[in-house]
């Protein structure tokens, strides 16, 4: 799979709307939402909040973001077995996800990483990139 590149300008262009949606969905102040805030660790989001945020983004930007798409795209050409085994991300998978989620500060990646912990990496910019990818794909 070839992943289209996303420029910082593209992210900056939609960032205010995305941050606004995240603040609204999580019931926090907009000031608390930073580009690299981890939604789960920094803003106390839960998995059901992700669904709410994605739903709001879909309506705001008129795109369809398939559930689980972010992890699927991060996996790239790796098969599920090559990406994770027994719930733990493989070394190859770890490098893949690190290369894909360039918006996440490097010190937040620690190996071994459980698959269930991947959503903890998601930042505000991760959601911006989700929207942009769907806009590019449309």
């Amino acid at each position: 799979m070839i992943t289209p590149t996303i420029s910082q300008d593209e992210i900056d262009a939609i960032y205010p709307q995305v941050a606004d949606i995240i603040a609204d969905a999580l019931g926090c102040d907009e000031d608390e939402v930073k580009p690299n805030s981890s939604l789960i660790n920094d803003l106390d989001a839960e998995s059901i909040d992700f669904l709410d945020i994605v739903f709001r983004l879909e309506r705001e930007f008129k795109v369809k973001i398939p559930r689980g798409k972010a992890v699927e795209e991060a996996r790239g050409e790796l098969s599920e077995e090559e990406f994770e085994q027994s719930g733990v991300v493989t070394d190859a998978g770890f490098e893949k996800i690190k290369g894909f989620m360039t918006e996440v500060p490097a010190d937040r990646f620690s190996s071994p990483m459980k698959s269930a912990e991947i959503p903890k990496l998601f930042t505000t910019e991760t959601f911006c990139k989700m929207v942009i990818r769907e806009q590019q794909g449309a």
Partner: protein
Amino acid sequence: MSEETDNSELFADGLSGKNAIVTGGSRGIGRAIVERLAGSGMDVTFTYLGNEEAANEVISANPGLAITAVKIDGRDSGAVNAFIESVFDRVGKIDVLVNNAGVIRDNLLPMLEDEDLEAVFKTNIDGVFHFCRATVPFMMSKRSGSIINISSVSAEKGGRGQTNYSASKGAINSFTKSLAVEVGRRKIRVNAVAPGVIETDMSKGVRDLAGDEIISNIVLKRYGLPSEIANAVWFLASDLSAYITGQILSVDGGFKM
């Protein structure tokens, strides 16, 4: 009492100006629910599948009430998604969802055909999944909502010839409790009303077949009325039940095993 007490605030249902969707609203219990909620000042959109004449009759019989009828098949998830989105776009929020649409195909187990299972499960279970799945995100984003699923006394109490129907309603009871847990944090309440034997076309077969036996098992010695189910739904839709979620409310005149 020396002074009159004003209880109007205590008993305010908080429904005026809110919006509701009722599935299967053209006849029987569904129609009574539509009329009860619309009579409380709600804008009610109800669905129907086959009987357009009955659907139009609900509207023409209630001039002045905000009632809209939409023909839709709840078994079709794509159609349900589009319908919910269209209602949201029209009215701006969905406050109440009543999953009432249901079918019955009673027969003794060896006599049940595959299509009898499919018809009952697809409408009574899949339909509820489809409507809830499409509606919950809209309620989540508003952080409010009340979902009421119409179950049945037969979910809890065995009924001869009702293996398929009672299984479908048992599933709805479990679904109701699980969804209540999932969405409670977003201030969405999910409850069910379990009617006993109600005077509707749907129950006519069983009433004709075993009327005396049924009545002998009902503590109040009579069948229920659609309006009595509608009153329970109204209560669960309203602010009066603000602290109730994940419950199955039996409205069955005291149905005994």
